[in-house]
């Protein structure tokens, strides 16, 4: 099945159809999606602000990352579930919308970066790394996750 075929299949799915036919399902799912984004923002920022030296100071970034992890993963799962539902209801619009592809690219990079490179850098600890690297990693993380948020918002604009 081609990519276009897959998107068409999604668009025609029963779930997508049910969401399209309801006047309130899409808005409610979308609002929950937005809540998830906010919580991801908090969980990401607690760690990134620590790495930038602008947030909490006395705790290690590793400790904060461990504390924030369940909230990051939990809200990410919530967003993927609600996001998939939203996608099913307007797959063809997404296929032709640049913002959708921008968002998916950012999301892929953000997830990979957070759970590989950033995790390694944090685990290495401040002692073994030059401080500038922590800051670069935090900035990249903020930029990638912001791309996900902006891209998502712009899917709604035509």
């Amino acid at each position: 099945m081609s990519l276009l075929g897959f998107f068409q299949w999604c668009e025609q799915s029963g779930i997508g159809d049910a969401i399209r036919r309801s006047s309130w399902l899409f808005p409610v799912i979308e609002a929950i999606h937005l809540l998830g984004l906010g919580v991801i923002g908090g969980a990401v920022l607690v760690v990134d602000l620590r790495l930038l030296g602008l947030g909490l100071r006395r705790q290690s970034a590793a400790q904060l990352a461990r504390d924030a992890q369940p909230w990051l993963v939990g809200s990410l799962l919530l967003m993927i579930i609600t996001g998939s539902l939203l996608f099913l209801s307007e797959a063809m619009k997404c296929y032709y919308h640049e913002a959708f592809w921008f968002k998916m690219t950012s999301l892929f990079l953000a997830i990979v970066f957070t759970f590989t490179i950033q995790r390694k850098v944090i685990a290495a600890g401040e002692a073994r790394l030059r401080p500038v690297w922590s800051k670069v990693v935090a900035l990249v993380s903020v930029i990638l996750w912001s791309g996900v948020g902006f891209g998502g918002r712009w899917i709604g604009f035509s």
Partner: protein
Amino acid sequence: MQLRLLTLLSALVLALCYLVTARSAAPDWGNAGHPIHVIPMLSLQMGTSPGIGGALLAFFSHLADSSWSVGLHESRYAYDLIESVHVWTLCLFFGLAVMFDLRLLGWTMRTVPVSEVARRLLPWTVVGFVSMVTSGTLLFLAIPLRSYQNIFFRTKMVMLLLAGLNVWIFHSGVYRRVATWDAASVPPRAARVAGALSLALWVCIVLSGRMIAYNWFDCDRQPQRPIINFLTSCVPTQSEEH
């Protein structure tokens, strides 16, 4: 103490409901030929609704005609950009506020003293809040009249006040004694209640904020239930009532 707070709270909500919905005089249906100020997409009777509600209505419809409002509304990208900023700063404000509330509940960062979280992270929530209010005001300015009569917008404003009250109660109450429970992995009951209330209120504020975009209860979609028209201070014209 708690009873007094509850009374204060309910009085505040009631006063606010009155202020936003007050229409002292009943609209005069019989006055045919009376000029009715019809705003495109919205039909409202102007001039027949004195009182604070009517004055606000007149003010916001005046605001809608201002060059600021028209400029924001008609620009190709201004509204979308400001809304994106609003969403981005939501992550900053709401995200960090949630993390602080979760700390108050003892659900995250349990080894970090509460005062440390407050001192290092709450300034960011202030930055986020100021940005949200600024971008939110601009969004309101772009569509003032419709927003003012939108039921979700009104719900959001009431809950914003309650959230502010909750912050004030927390900081002037249990947080003053933070030194005695700073390192507790699970803070005392009063702090947990403040955290839970704050969490619930901000979640509802985000939800209702998102819903402002939808027009299910807008004035131009009559007939609506009388309670909805009361809450949105809509006065449907006679032909719309049926």
